[in-house]
């Protein structure tokens, strides 16, 4: 049984870490981009961003004034039990979101879509989103918070098998350039691409590819991993850098996730996780131990399973 007070306290710490500390994998990726960037203005922007991450950590203040729309991804081992059950868990995550909004402070971004009511705490109808995943075996809970910016850089399109890789490339470039101009996407970004699923799951896949995979990670399908490398290079060959200035750094990394789709279609979504790629992760164990990390490790072999049954022993052997 995992104590609910530890979950809430951990969640509050995660909110703080996500807003303030740039994950090391993104930082390494951006430093590599800064080293090869030769556009005058683009270089200036990247250097300013690198200084900004330092300032945020030194001052313990949010790295960006737009602290995005905080949300939660929760993953549990199959044997996990939470004190008070799932209702208590959701209440703890909502409380942590509200408390951290006031505490860090974060920008209270969440408002009613029509009446623009602002509770000044990032909590409201459907906010924060809480999504779940499960893994075979184990008694632990992974709390993952992502504070993604929410206005530009994302798009969806229904493609068809006849569009092929050439069509996928076209929509990828269209999305990058449309939102890259003037830097609306706050690039260089982690670009997540969702392929397949249904319209809603395609969006979910792309968003998770951007937010729940780290810079340098690869899809477990070697041919998709090859596409990821090719797309990263393609994005960086546009000739556009930070803020849409002439440069060569648009894509810190490109992550692709796929889902089985309608036989006639090839849904595609593109998401950009920005210069403030805010994510923080902690695992809470049944004995109350808490381990912090920045890699959500969401896309396990189990999450990408293709068959009816899950052959658990095979996974254990493979790992």
């Amino acid at each position, binding site marked *: 049984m995992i104590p609910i007070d530890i979950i809430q306290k951990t969640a509050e710490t995660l909110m703080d870490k996500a807003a303030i500390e740039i994950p090391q994998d993104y930082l390494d990726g951006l430093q590599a981009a800064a080293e090869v960037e030769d556009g005058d203005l683009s270089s200036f922007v990247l250097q300013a961003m690198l200084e900004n991450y330092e300032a945020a950590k030194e001052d313990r*203040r949010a790295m*960006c004034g737009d602290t995005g729309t905080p949300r939660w991804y929760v993953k549990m081992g199959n044997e996990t039990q939470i004190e008070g059950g799932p209702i208590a868990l959701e209440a703890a995550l909502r409380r942590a979101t509200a408390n951290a909004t006031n505490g860090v402070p974060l*920008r209270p971004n969440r408002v009613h879509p029509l009446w623009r009511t602002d509770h000044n705490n990032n909590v409201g109808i459907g906010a924060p989103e809480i999504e779940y995943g499960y893994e075979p075996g184990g008694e632990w809970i992974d709390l993952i918070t992502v504070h993604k910016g929410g206005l530009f850089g994302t798009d969806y399109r229904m493609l068809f098998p006849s569009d092929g890789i050439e069509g996928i490339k*076209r929509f990828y470039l269209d999305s990058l350039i*449309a939102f890259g101009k003037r830097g609306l996407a706050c690039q260089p970004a982690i670009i997540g691409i969702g392929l397949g699923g249904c319209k809603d799951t395609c969006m979910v896949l792309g968003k998770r590819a951007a937010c729940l995979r780290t810079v340098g990670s690869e899809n477990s399908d070697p041919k998709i991993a090859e596409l990821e490398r090719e797309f990263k290079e393609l994005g960086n060959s546009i000739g556009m850098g930070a*803020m849409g200035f002439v440069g060569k750094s648009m894509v810190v990394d490109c992550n692709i996730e796929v889902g089985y789709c309608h036989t006639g279609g090839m849904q595609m979504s593109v998401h950009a996780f920005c210069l403030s790629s805010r994510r923080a992760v902690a695992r809470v164990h049944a004995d109350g131990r808490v381990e912090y990390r920045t890699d959500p490790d969401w896309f396990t072999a189990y999450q990408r399973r293709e068959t009816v049954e899950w052959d658990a022993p095979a996974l254990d052997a493979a790992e």
Partner: protein
Amino acid sequence: MSPRKIRLSTTPTQEALDDLRLGDIVYLDGLMYTAREGVYKRALEDKANIPMELPRDSAANFHCSPAARINPDGTFEMGAVTATASFRFAKWLPEWMAKSGAKLIIGKGGMTSKDYKAFFVPNGAIYLSTVGYGTGALLGRGVEKVEAVHWNEELGLAQAMWVIKCNNMGPFIVASDKNGDCLFERENAKVAQNLERVYEGTRPATLKRYGETDDRSDEVI
């Protein structure tokens, strides 16, 4: 070649504004206020009295909602500050400039050269863009003091009118000049020269989008 760096007052002289060149890096001193759709609607559509003496106190309008809170004792805690995209506010700006005398519009992503020529140039105003975007912590360091927050009851913390005392606050990039030229459009034009080559080997989608264009010099704003 590294960009030119300039310190500028938030109640600048016309001479100082006219001297700014596209791509200059600017650091600001003096009072600055946040105003975006909430403030514009309240001041211009609902005709509420602006709770500051403008432009005497400040001629710098920041398109920003800070990550900030009001403490129970009425003091303020301001962490990070960054801008929101300005193009959405174009419809209110001509009237706002006339009413507020704003000379510096500060935000994200700039506006079009058409907007600059239509109402920035006649008012002698300049657009400054934040950098990154997302140098929120650096800009936060430039906030010497939060002087006041107006209309937070009516508009909420994110849309309220925050009055900030800036001390060497920056960096910002000059994105329009006295002629109404646009830094982002200049860069767009340079990038566009390469696009034909980048798109080689791609194919247009089988299912078209109604009303969409294939003109790659287009923008989404």
